[in-house]
Structure formats: C-alpha cells, structure tokens
C-alpha cells in the first residue's frame, strides 16, 4: 500500500421518514473516508505522481468499504461522489492529484459501470473541517432526483500533514424527489449524461 493510512471511517445514513411521510424503502447513503499522511506536505512538489497513485488505491478501497457498508453489490449503487480535504501544510492541488487522474477508474470497476462524471469537491482546512460530498447518478449525470450531497467530518482530521479522502455511494436518490427532470427509468446510458 502506497498510502499511509491513519484511520478509516465509514458513515451510513438511512432516511425512513421525511416531513412526517414514510419513506419506503428508506433512502440510503454511505461514505468511506481515509485519513492519510500527505507525502508532499510542507514543501512545493512539482510532480504529484505519488498522490495520483495513492488516489488509485483509495478509489478501490473506499468504494468497496462504502458498498459493503450499504450491504449491496457494486452494480446496485445508484449515485456517487468524491471529495478531499488537505491539511494546512498541504496544497489544494494535492487534493486534485488524488481525486482526478486515477481515482475514478477503480471506483467504476467496483460499481460495474459509471458512465457519468463523478461529482467532486475539495478544500484545505483544519481538524473537524466539513466535507460536503456532491452526489450524482452514476450512469446519467442529468438524473435530477439524484442530485444530492452528503456531509462528513471527523473531529481529529485532517492534521496539518494529512489529507482526508472520501468516496460516497448511494442506493437511492433524495427521499421525496418532485422537481421534475430526467428520471432514472428514462436513462439511455450512452453518453453519461442522459
């Protein structure tokens, strides 16, 4: 393992009621978060290949954890997202190196498909910083019922020389979607958009 992991956390949220209406089946979201050492902290590093390789490892590990936390098979996942928070001695570009070049391929391998862009967010912050992981349908980015987000935070991360990396997966959209747009049964699934 290239990543030096201090801690892995998983979160599952299951919504059973919303505005006093029963949600059946409940909507469910899971996020897996790894807290790793930032090998590039404290100095300017031109070549970020090491972080890209770490992103590839974490893409597989965190997606597998999130899917396991939901107790579903990868292909049953409906939406996904990713995010990273860099500790204060790091650079925003370190989050980009982890998230963008190589993390997506193993995510899609675990989920079976994933034609759509994986929505993402990133920031630099201190201990307890909040990550809002954006969520979108994994096969068709325009499915409006699945535009969502999941908040995660850990009180003790990221330390100055650490990075928090998160992958979120759901088996559903928002609890009571009713703002129209493309629905999941209308997905053509060719271009990742519709």
């Amino acid at each position: 393992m290239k990543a030096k992991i201090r801690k892995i956390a998983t979160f599952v949220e299951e919504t059973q009621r919303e505005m006093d209406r029963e949600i059946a089946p409940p909507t469910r979201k899971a996020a897996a978060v790894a807290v790793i050492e930032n090998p590039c902290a404290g100095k300017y590093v031109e070549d970020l290949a090491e972080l890209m390789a770490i992103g590839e490892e974490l893409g597989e590990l965190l997606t597998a954890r999130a899917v396991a936390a939901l107790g579903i098979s990868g292909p049953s996942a409906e939406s996904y997202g990713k995010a990273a928070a860099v500790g204060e001695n790091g650079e925003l570009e370190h989050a980009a190196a982890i998230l963008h070049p190589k993390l997506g391929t193993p995510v899609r391998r675990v989920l079976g498909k994933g034609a759509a862009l994986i929505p993402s967010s990133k920031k630099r912050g201190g201990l307890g910083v909040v990550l809002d992981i954006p969520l979108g349908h994994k096969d068709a980015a325009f499915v409006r019922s699945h535009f969502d987000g999941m908040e995660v935070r850990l009180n003790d991360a990221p330390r100055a020389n650490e990075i928090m990396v998160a992958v979120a997966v759901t088996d559903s959209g928002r609890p009571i979607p009713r703002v129209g747009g493309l629905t999941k049964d209308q997905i053509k699934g060719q271009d990742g958009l519709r």
Partner: protein
Amino acid sequence: MPEVLVRKKITCVEEIFHEGGPVAQKPLRRAAALAIIRNPFAGSYVANIEGFMDDLKPLGLEMARSLVSALGGDANAVEGYGKGAIVGSAGELEHGALWHVPGGYGMREVLGGAKAIVASTKKVGAPGTRLDVPITHINASYVRSHFDAMEVGVNDAPRADEILLALVMTTGARVHARVGGLKASEIRGEDGLR
C-alpha cells in the same frame, strides 16, 4: 405512550491504525449508532413521560445489535461503551434522560450483561450540534486505557421537535494507551468498577 417515529438512522465506524506512533497490530474500532426520532413531548411541559422509556426499548436493542454487526458481528469483541442524546430546541433536557434505561438495557442485553455503568452525556441543541459521547470499559469503569470518547452528530438533526439518540461501542483501548492505571487484564469484574 406515543409511537416511536424514526426519521433517520446513521451508523459511523472508525478504524484507527495509529496516531503518530507504532501501527496497531489490531486496529481499534469505534462505532456509533444514531437514531433521529420525533420528540412526542416537544413544545409543552408534559409531567408524565416515564412510560416512553419502555417504548424506546426495542429501538435500543436494535441499535445495540446494529453496532455489534458494524464491529464485525462478535459481541465478545466489544470492550467499551457509551451513550448520549441531543434534544431539539422545542424539547427539554429531561427528554434526553429518557434514553438512559432503554439505551443501557439494549447494550447490556446484546453484550451479555456488562457490569459497568454506561457512561453518558446529553444536551439540548440545534441541527448540526456535536456530542462527545464518553466511553468506558464495559465491565470495570476504572480501566484507564479504555477511557475514550467519540464525537457524533449530523448536519440536519435534531430539528426542534426531534431527539437524536446515540449508542457507541469500541473494540479496545486507545490506540497508543500508556498512562497506567487499572488494566483490562486486571479486572476482578465483581462491582462494575474494578
């Protein structure tokens, strides 16, 4: 007494490999189960609330079971526990106290009669309020290596007329415990203290 209406359930698991020292042979795992329920007494002073403790017992048991399952399924692996509650702004601290009996009952039932008092905390708070749930050894409160806490909370709860109920379990000592005191191996296990 009123029906227990659950809006949302959350499970968080942390797996801690190290905290700057040697990597643990067996990582410490902490898990929290949260349930966000409607507070049937919100908005006015209700004198007689005690009966609701019995109504909460099945939920306590279910949450305790879900924690054991989140920690790998073996109740014998659980060494620490704690509980807590956050009451939404239209409620009263005393409503949080309703969780003492059913929360503790659920965990003891699942853990086969743990002897130590379940460490606990509670407060009134807004959505997003965090709670540091205290943790102590399940059979002997004075085991110093197991004094710990887990921060829990969620961005959208408790709403004014809700209560967030929490149970926490851990699989061992702090990851680099080294401040002496009673050891888990020295427990007599008679009085719940030593």
